[in-house]
């Protein structure tokens, strides 16, 4: 009950324990805690960064898709235009060609017809003359009726 020398020993022991804790215990524990806090903070900030990067990437992808879609649309439009142009040109070419061919054919037909007509005319004249000759061999002098025959030829 009465205080004795024990209290001095207890006080010194207390100081010794405090010294040991201060020197070897406390810094380790606090150091570990602070390091963990830093690590957690770092991890959180990195997660935030990653999330932001992901959002950026998403936005970029969406942008790219939009651009690609616009480009594709324009390509399709252009192709359609080109196709229309090609068809148009082909049609026009065909029309021109057809007209040309028709003109050539018409000219040809005309020439043939003319030729045939001339031929026919000559033949008819000859036939007429021959007929007339046959009829008139006896009565008509060819020379005497030459003007008449000429007139006949022109009329036919």
């Amino acid at each position: 009950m009465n205080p004795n020398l024990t209290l001095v020993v207890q006080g010194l022991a207390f100081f010794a324990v405090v010294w040991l804790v201060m020197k070897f215990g406390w810094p380790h524990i606090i150091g570990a805690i602070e390091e963990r806090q830093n690590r957690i903070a770092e991890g959180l900030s990195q997660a935030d960064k990653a999330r932001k990067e992901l959002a950026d990437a998403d936005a970029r992808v969406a942008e790219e898709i939009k651009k690609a879609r616009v480009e594709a649309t324009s390509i399709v439009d252009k192709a359609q235009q080109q196709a229309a142009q090609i068809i148009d040109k082909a049609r026009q070419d065909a029309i021109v060609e057809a007209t040309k061919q028709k003109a050539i054919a018409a000219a040809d037909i005309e020439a043939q017809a003319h030729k045939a007509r001339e031929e026919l005319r000559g033949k008819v004249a000859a036939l007429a003359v021959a007929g007339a000759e046959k009829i008139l061999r006896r009565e008509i002098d060819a020379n005497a009726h030459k003007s008449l025959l000429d007139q006949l030829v022109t009329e036919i």
Partner: protein
Amino acid sequence: MATPHEPAAGADMTGYIQHHLHHWQLQVGDSAFMTLNLDTLIFTLLCCATFLGLFVLFARRATAGVPGKLQSIVEAVVLFVDGLVKETFHGKSKVIAPMSLTLFGLIFFMNFLDLLPIDFLPWLWSGAHSLAGHDPAHAYLRIVPTADLNTPLGMALAVFFMVQYVGLSEKGVVKFFAEFFTAPFHAHGALGKVLLSPANLLLRLIEEAVRPVSLSLRLFGNMYAGELIFILIAVMTLGAGIAHASTWFLGFGQFVADFGWTAFHILIITLQAFIFMVLSIVYLSMAAESH
């Protein structure tokens, strides 16, 4: 449970209690002061070993990775003390936080010995004494170091010296000693200062003297009273025989009382350790601040 097993104490109630309150002592000098309470010292050493094992040896393996269960507990205690110190103490000293942790942890472990069955270790001790051929009536053992006035007083005096040291190192010698005469009553003008200085000095001396006394007596009183009540509960079946009906009745009462007091004491031992630490922090922070 507290069942009396000490044959040496006999059935005599006063003798039993006195035997329980007697330290195992070693006389090292001529005067009464030159005595060492060996039981207090041994159990203090055990508590220090437990505390240091937990907060120094174990702490050296502390990792910044995912903490284990024990490390979580250690860290929770350290963070709790650290927060308390940071909140209250604004000086530069690096020793305050480890010292507060030591106060709390060490006092808690010492107080915790009070929860061991009151007769268990003394019974083993007296048995060992008889085996060694000594008289078991002289086998004294008090296992709770904080129920010995020397321990709280030694710690309170250590805190007292730390308060003076912190005051000196934070304020400087001149300011430290000047405040003996200028605080708590502040005066304007030379005459007022001279007139008030004796009152200031007196108050300061009383304050400084009272602190270690109140600090140590609060802890000692609580633990001593707790131990005494455990002893009184144990006395309920002192020298009882199985044949007596009162033994069964009192035995049940003893069980209930002991259980209740032990449960309540868990609160007290923690609270007293906490109060000792908080008051020490407050004294230290008051010493570090200028008045």
